[in-house]
């Protein structure tokens, strides 16, 4: 039985801490940090000058993502659901979760024939055991990609909950090449999430991993054991190049 609220009142500690800090904070205003060297340096590619054409970033993104042990499947705008299916079959996934009312549900339907498709359409507490113990893969779309590091930018929400890319052992992420940026700061300056921060903004690079035992790298620590990125080429003329 939950107890009635007995949370300690911490306003005295608040006053003491802020008072001590105020008493010793420097009086002179300090200059606002200048981030230009970051944006112009090797870690901020694509921040200065015009945005590099996404078509020029596909290969770099793929190489970087593979470097972090993500699998990358290229697809055309017309046939990407088949690539998703291919990924699921390769990983022997039978029970697959997708967001409800998300941007991809309808397109995927036909391609997932024969699999058990579970829509994430109720609060997690109603089906936690099933999500944890019986779902083989979660499929999500991707807000943006970072070519420099092979990173995915995800903005989970009602249509694609946070656990979809976390709990199932396989995460399949669909990324449109038109959403590729050269570097992380370039992507963040374009997306400007700080204007209206979502509950969760997430960067994902490769599958979950750890080197906590004798610095030996092992995959599948607590998050997905494998990450497949379906890279939809919506920027090259010929599609698959």
């Amino acid at each position, binding site marked *: 039985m939950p*107890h009635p609220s007995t*949370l300690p009142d911490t306003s005295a*500690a608040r006053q003491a801490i802020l008072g001590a800090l105020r008493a*010793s904070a420097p009086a002179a205003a300090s200059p606002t940090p200048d981030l230009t060297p970051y944006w112009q340096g090797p870690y901020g590619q694509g921040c200065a000058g015009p945005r590099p054409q996404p078509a020029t970033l596909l290969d770099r993104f793929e190489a970087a993502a593979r470097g972090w042990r993500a699998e990358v499947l290229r697809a055309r705008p017309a046939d990407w659901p088949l690539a998703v299916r291919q990924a699921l079959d390769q990983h022997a996934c039978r029970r697959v979760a997708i967001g409800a009312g998300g941007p991809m549900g309808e397109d995927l339907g036909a391609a997932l024939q024969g699999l058990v498709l579970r829509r994430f359409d109720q609060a*997690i507490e109603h089906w936690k055991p099933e999500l944890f113990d019986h779902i083989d893969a979660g499929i999500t779309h991707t807000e943006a990609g970072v070519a420099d590091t092979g990173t995915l930018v995800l903005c989970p929400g009602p249509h694609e909950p946070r656990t979809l890319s976390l*709990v199932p052992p396989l995460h399949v992420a669909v990324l449109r090449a038109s959403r590729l940026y050269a570097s992380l700061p370039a992507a963040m300056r374009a997306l400007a999430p*700080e204007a209206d921060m979502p509950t969760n903004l997430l960067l994902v690079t490769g599958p979950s991993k750890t080197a906590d*035992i004798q*610095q030996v790298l092992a995959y599948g*620590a607590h998050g997905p054991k494998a990450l497949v990125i379906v890279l939809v080429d919506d920027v090259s003329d010929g599609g698959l190049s």
Partner: protein
Amino acid sequence: MTTAGAPLHFVDPRHFKANTREAVDDAHLRRSFRSAMDFLQAKRGAHFEDTAAFEALRGVGQAIRQYSLARLPDLLELLEQRLTERGVQVHWAATPAEANAIFLALAREHGATGMIKGKSMVSEEIELNHRMAEQGVRCLESDMGEYIVQLAGERPSHIIMPAIHKTKQQIAELFTQHIPDTPYTEDVDELIATGRKVLRNEFRDAKIGVSGVNFMVAETGSLVLVENEGNGRMCTTVPDVHIAITGIEKVVQRFEHVLPLFSLLTRSATGQAVTTYLNVITGPRREGELDGPKQVHLILLDNGRSQAYRDADFRPTLQCIRCGACMNHCPVYARIGGLAYGTTYPGPIGAIISPHLLGLEPTQDLPTASSLCGACAEVCPVGIPIPDLLVQLRRAARHDAEPGHAPLAGQASAKDWKEAFAWKAWAWLNERPVLYRWAIGLGHRVRWLTPPWQGGWTAHRTPLKLARRGLRDRLPGRGVR
């Protein structure tokens, strides 16, 4: 299932010198650390071969941290306001005891008998696991390294790689001993799979998840977590309640300030351009969302940080982003490991932060654990002048505060009255030339009385003895006047 609450192999920083002797005599431990430090140094080095690029990035990181600290009270108030608007409940704790009281009250309020934890050094600082165990609340570590350390009933020996002192054989034995139906294996993939299986059930069933925080963004009211394993995401997403705890210094103003610090943090810590996850949390589950915690609490801990803040000389200590590069490059840490320090934060950063957290009395020896070689300052991604701070703390341990500076907790606790008197007498003598000459002359004549044992000096050196004749007497014979 676990040994949470079992007696900690507690090491007291007061016994630092004895601890170091024990540590350097442990060949096994030294091999573990040497190879781990070589590995981490090489991985970091590969990312910063272009030193000009590193310097430029470090300049940005340092400027952000200094700016954030200069505005710290304003930013904390703005952060609190934005967090509250987003539905996060903010609590303040001046001491570890106050922080633990908040944790306990939250556990009681939600009827929770346990909590699942992501990695948090601040929770180590308040000894959360043991304080909760005393009250019947079980805290389970879920970071693989922390889980191993907890099974062993030990403390983390490194802030980024907590189980760096453990071999896979020791870990295999721990797992066989503590986890039912686990056969002995030294295969790292299998060991990790075992940990994954055990902890997955815990994530699923826990009511409360606990995490640390790497950065807080004041303007957006966001908590930023950096990790590879995904346990941080689990702890902050799956349970109904998320409690985050962190030090008051971790705040920055704008979201864009996080990115250069993230670039510096991951490269400096483990030599990764990015970690698997960067998790930005802004408030509890909103209307219409189907997962995420229903309550988010943030505990802001002072625990001596405001003392470091008070003095402009010590304030740079709080620039730290906890990457661990200073320990990875410290020749002392590499030889004695993290446990000998007896503090939550070991190595050079531990030697400069622990005196503020615990007072100088128990930690007075820690700032002496350095040859002042400067490697820590060279690699620090936010430009903390660690060797200068070590020297200042050595002085503060042995001398009263200088005029214009408030004394630190434990100021002058290592003051040696005999030594202070000797220096005073020496100064007095120097001001009286006649007496000085007479006394020195006497000293040369009775040099045979020099004791062969001269305290710490003769532990590793030959005794100091006056020469038969002083320099002053010899020079005229050599034509020097």
